[in-house]
């Protein structure tokens, strides 16, 4: 907001990213509830409608399913929509289109067309918004092949990653933690295009890896500071991209520190932390004695030739056990 020239607030980072991408490519459009005339309920997008006109930046009815599906259709037909679903708690209303339309299109169409679509949504609690306006629905989308999930922790990353999301050819859920909007950072020069799917080590350490994202990263940094005072050296890993997850960086950090704690803002059962544990665990015991088999990360194919091989079967189970137990 009133950050100085060389400061960047998280809120402005988002606006700048959208602004720059709207300017760079006339196929980019942006719509949502109260985003245009009013500039968004979190005051993130003022001025964009006036700058780019109602054809490219517009307010919509309160129709989350129509929003997400209209975005999908417009992407099929060549546009690069950015949609705001005000609170991520409302995403369930839009979920059918995201999961059954956008996420599957590239694969189902036999790679005729991908869906470059960004859904921005505010997540997270800690500010008294209560049970239906504070959720972090990451885990509920984590198992959707074809969807990317981005969740930045800092202003510069927010800008970098949102720009990358808009330029990505795939559907991306972009989560903005409400408690971060007002945070600021010294502005960094953005060079090149960020690649979605890479985590970031925000603090190096040797005794334990703390893994988190969004607001949790600051908590981990503060915990790391406290830990250093009692002689424990913590490495802090900011996932940034929940899907795809940076398995490599998780595993290499865990290989180094031999201890790893995941910090998630969300229910422990069925959360994304379990996914991180499973990934790290492959290092822990060399993948030997605690592992999973499932289908590959893509939609279920129709062709019997493909479908029959798609699922785990008695044979694949047998082979997998034989192989690991032979080691």
């Amino acid at each position, binding site marked *: 907001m009133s950050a100085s020239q060389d400061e960047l607030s998280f809120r402005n980072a988002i606006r700048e990213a959208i602004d*720059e*991408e709207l*300017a*760079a*490519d006339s196929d980019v*459009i942006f719509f949502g509830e109260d985003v245009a005339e009013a500039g968004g309920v979190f005051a993130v997008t003022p001025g964009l409608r006036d700058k780019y006109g109602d054809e490219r930046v*517009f307010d*919509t*009815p309160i*129709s989350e*399913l*129509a*929003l*997400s*599906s*209209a*975005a*999908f*259709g*417009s*992407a*099929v*037909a*060549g*546009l690069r*929509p950015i949609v705001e679903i005000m609170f991520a708690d409302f995403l369930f209303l839009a979920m*059918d*289109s995201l999961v*059954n*339309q956008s996420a599957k*299109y*590239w*694969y*189902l*169409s*036999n*790679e*005729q*067309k*991908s869906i*470059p679509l960004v859904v921005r949504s505010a997540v997270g609690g800690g500010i008294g918004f209560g049970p239906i306006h504070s959720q972090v629905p990451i885990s509920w989308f984590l198992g959707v092949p*074809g969807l*990317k999930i981005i969740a930045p922790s800092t202003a510069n990353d927010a800008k970098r990653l949102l*720009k990358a999301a808009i*330029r*990505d*050819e*795939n559907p991306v859920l972009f989560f903005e933690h409400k408690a971060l909007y007002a945070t600021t950072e010294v502005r960094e020069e953005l060079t090149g*295009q960020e690649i979605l799917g890479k985590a970031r080590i925000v603090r190096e350490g040797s005794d334990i890896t703390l893994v988190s994202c969004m607001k949790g990263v600051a908590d981990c940094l503060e915990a790391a500071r406290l830990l250093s005072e009692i002689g424990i050296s913590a490495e802090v890993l900011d996932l940034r991209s929940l899907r*795809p997850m940076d398995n490599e960086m998780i595993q290499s950090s865990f290989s180094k520190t031999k201890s790893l704690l995941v910090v998630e803002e969300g229910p422990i059962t069925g959360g994304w932390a379990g996914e991180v544990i499973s990934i790290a665990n492959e290092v822990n015991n060399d993948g030997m004695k605690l592992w999973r088999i499932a289908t*590959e*990360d*893509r*939609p279920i*194919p*129709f*062709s*019997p*030739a*493909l479908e029959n091989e798609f699922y785990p079967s008695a044979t694949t189970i047998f082979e997998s056990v034989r192989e690991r137990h032979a080691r």
Partner: protein
Amino acid sequence: MDTLKANLELFEKMVLIRTFEETVQSLFQKGAIVGTTHLYSGQEAVATGFASALQPQDLVAATYRGHGHALATGVTPQSLMDEMLGRLTGVCGGRSGSMNVIDLEHRLIGCFGIIGGSIGAATGAAIALARRNGVAIAYFGDGAINQAYFYECLNFAAVRKLPVIFVCENNLYGEYTPWEDVTAGQIRARAEALEVKSETIDGNDVWAVQKAALASFDYARNGNGPVFIEALTYRFVGHSRSDPGKYRKPGELDAWKLRDPLIIARKRLVDEFSFSPQEVDAAEAGVKKRMEEVREQSLKAPSPGLKKLGSEFMELKRTGGGGA
């Protein structure tokens, strides 16, 4: 002459769809096609009539009952039949199957297995098409008008004045349930309440459909906003492969069979467009022969190898656009 030829082509298209569906049915019964299928037999005039008014830049979204829409729009019978069989040469490489066909080269955004999905897809496509003088068309059934997609998108399209045509094919049933049992009021009234231009048409006379289609495309293309069409029609076959069919009212099927779109078209070709019965027969036989060949070739088409599994993401990165 051209018009005459075009009229015969409408008939041929409908015969193609009917024959395609009969072929699917027989392959299904033989076990060559697996899963489930929803056939379009009886409704051919709707897709054929609307497709005849499409321009190259237009786009089409259809349902799981979409073979007819796909063929009418221009998807080749060979690639579609290959898809039914899950072959590598299928229009989606065998990944999609009967309910989810996509063929952008032929303007088909997709067939949508989720009721109402076609409506959302076409509404969105219209946002893009408005920029290039195109129109999107969504097909859906009488059952779909009770789905969230229909209502939210109809309002969205109306408010944004999008060039989209909503075609509700009222074939009297959603699966086994009569539409009036689950639908309050009249179907067209819902669009009228949103002040969307609306019309109910005879969906079994391809020329009646064509007339409404031309007017609708004109209206939408000229920036007047969406159009809603209720096309009255009937499906001659079961809802899907496992339809008990007990729900039909006595005599209903027979009555509609008298209004078979192929019979109506044949009659008008002869009575009004001066074709001889022999010419019409010959056209029909020609189509059927071609479908025979398609069928044979499909059965010989290769299956996708496992290497064709592909990736969940498009990996290519876009270049160009403004710098970071």
